[in-house]
């Protein structure tokens, strides 16, 4: 299993009485591409933060690619996230004043999975695959279009060849044309690397790209009980 959640409860420390997540049992198999949809305030970001190790469950088991994140220290979770999980957001995926190559290298710095020489080649090859022209590689990413930035974000997220890729509404700032390009390239990339994809969005039109669709309300029962 790529993701295995069991009896997971989570509430924020400043509001311990309010349960944000209550997941009895939810799992995702390795290599699966899952579309999770749900309304805002449904605990979506909290779930993703638990899976990436940014947050730690109050109770229950959180197992990601065989690693028990609920039992790992903060440092262990940071290292695990750097090496095994890729993350793409709706926006602010990149450091705006760095160029594409620096942004991608930065993500690699914390994982340190291979030598710098092969890394450069990989970056250039991936940027070419994602149709980023060589002339744009060394421009600050803030000067590139949103579509280009999101494609660079995929490269940044995939550079360490993560087993799990989390995408949090990554297409909401893209127009139809760029959204289609983005989805095609993303799904092709994860299929090629057999990466588990957890894609969260409220845009149901994207469901067609996935073979498994889960409603967040079915996963998280917090707020629906009583």
């Amino acid at each position, binding site marked *: 299993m790529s993701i295995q959640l069991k009896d997971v409860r989570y509430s924020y420390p400043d509001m311990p009485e309010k349960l944000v997540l209550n997941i009895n049992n939810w799992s995702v198999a390795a290599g699966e591409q899952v579309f999770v949809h749900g309304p805002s305030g449904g605990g979506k*970001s*909290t779930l993703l*933060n638990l899976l*990436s190790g*940014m*947050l730690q469950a109050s109770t229950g088991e959180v197992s990601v690619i065989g690693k028990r994140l609920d039992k790992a220290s*903060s*440092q262990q979770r*940071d*290292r695990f*996230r*750097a*090496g095994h999980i890729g*993350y793409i*957001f709706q926006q*602010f*995926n*990149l*450091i*705006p*004043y*760095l160029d594409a190559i*620096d942004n991608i*290298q*930065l*993500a690699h*710095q*914390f*994982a340190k999975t291979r030598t710098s020489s092969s890394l450069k080649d990989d970056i250039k090859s991936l940027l070419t695959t994602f149709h980023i022209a060589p002339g744009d590689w060394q421009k600050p990413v803030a000067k590139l279009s949103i579509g280009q930035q999101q494609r660079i974000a995929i490269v*940044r997220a995939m550079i360490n060849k993560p087993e799990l890729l989390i995408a949090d509404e990554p297409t909401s700032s893209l127009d139809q044309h760029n959204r289609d390009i983005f989805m095609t390239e993303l799904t092709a990339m994860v299929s090629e690397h057999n990466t588990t994809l957890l894609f969260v969005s409220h845009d149901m039109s994207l469901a067609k790209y996935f073979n498994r669709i889960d409603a967040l309300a079915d996963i998280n029962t917090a707020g629906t009980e009583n």
Partner: protein
Amino acid sequence: MFFRLATKSLFNRKGSVVLTILAMSVSIFVLLGVEHIRSQTKESFNSTVSGVDLIVGARTGSLNLLLYSVFRIGSPTNNIDWETYQTISTNPKVAWAIPISLGDSHKGYRVMGTSTDYFKHFSYGNKRQLNFAAGQAFNDLFDVVLGAEVAKTLGYSLDDKITLAHGLGNTSFSLHDDRPFKVTGILASTGTPVDQTVHISLQGIEAIHIDWKQGVKIPGSTIQTEQLAALTLTPKTITAFMLGLNSRMTIFQVQRDINNYRQEPLSAILPGVALSELWQMIGILENTLRLISGLILIAALLGLSAMMLASIREREHEIHLLRVIGAPPSYLFLLVEMEALLISFLSLVIALSGLYLGLLLSGDFLTSKVGLQMSFALFSGNNLLFILLAIGATIVAAALPSFFAYRNAKLSR
């Protein structure tokens, strides 16, 4: 990559960063500049005279005697009888004596009447003797030896003729223009008041004043220059004299004897002791300057801290992104510290370059007007300590914004 991220992050905020660097540069410039001038002035003071065991003058305070006899600043309270000088200088405990006679000038530079023993025995710095850059000591009545700065500033060379003026000051209307002097020697630079002194023989001093009375030339005087050689030109009085003793063990005994000299009220001082007294007086000013420059640095560091703190608030997304890609909170702490250190380092480079440039441009002015020869060795003495202190203070000043970055990273979700 860490260093690259820090530099590019600073470059991204270049407006506020440049202003902070300027403020830091000015404060470090002031701090190091004040310290450098202080240490150079002290060194210059301390190296003005060495190897002289006692300086003797008419009864006065030790500082006044030191200032007029060595630094050519101020005026003596009285003169000393030539017989007194003869009596003391022939004391068996005395190895050598250098008479000093002051009172005239040349274009603002003081004229000092002395004997050729001055060139043999007077030393400065670490017992360095006077050397001639050109020519030799005075031999004739109207020979003159110029200090290095006098020759350089006024453009004199050997065999040039110069006219001395009666009294002090840049402009004098009482000139000894009937008895010009010939330049026979130019001393090598010493970085001491010697460089600003015009040296002639005691007999030369007598010769130009032989037909003068109370600061005015006696009208109708008929003594021709050629006649002077035949006259006995022994001075009646001198301003002060320096003594070198055979044994340093006898310094206090000789000093006591001179201070109790019955025929004439005299003061004998130890130059080293008088110099340290002088420096103690300047110490208050010195500490005040240090305090002010320290406060300026603190103000600049607070500015740096405020700028970094404001930047943390603007960088929430960046901090979150770094956390998501695996950066531990300590990385964010160190990143902000590194940015502050880069600002500090750049400020140091600018401040030190400014100081070098300042010394380069003002070196001649300081030497000619203040008599201060400034060294370019900026990393000597306390300056190295102050540089390390500035770096340490930067780390402390950046601790608060670094902690905020760390805390934001910890809470980032």
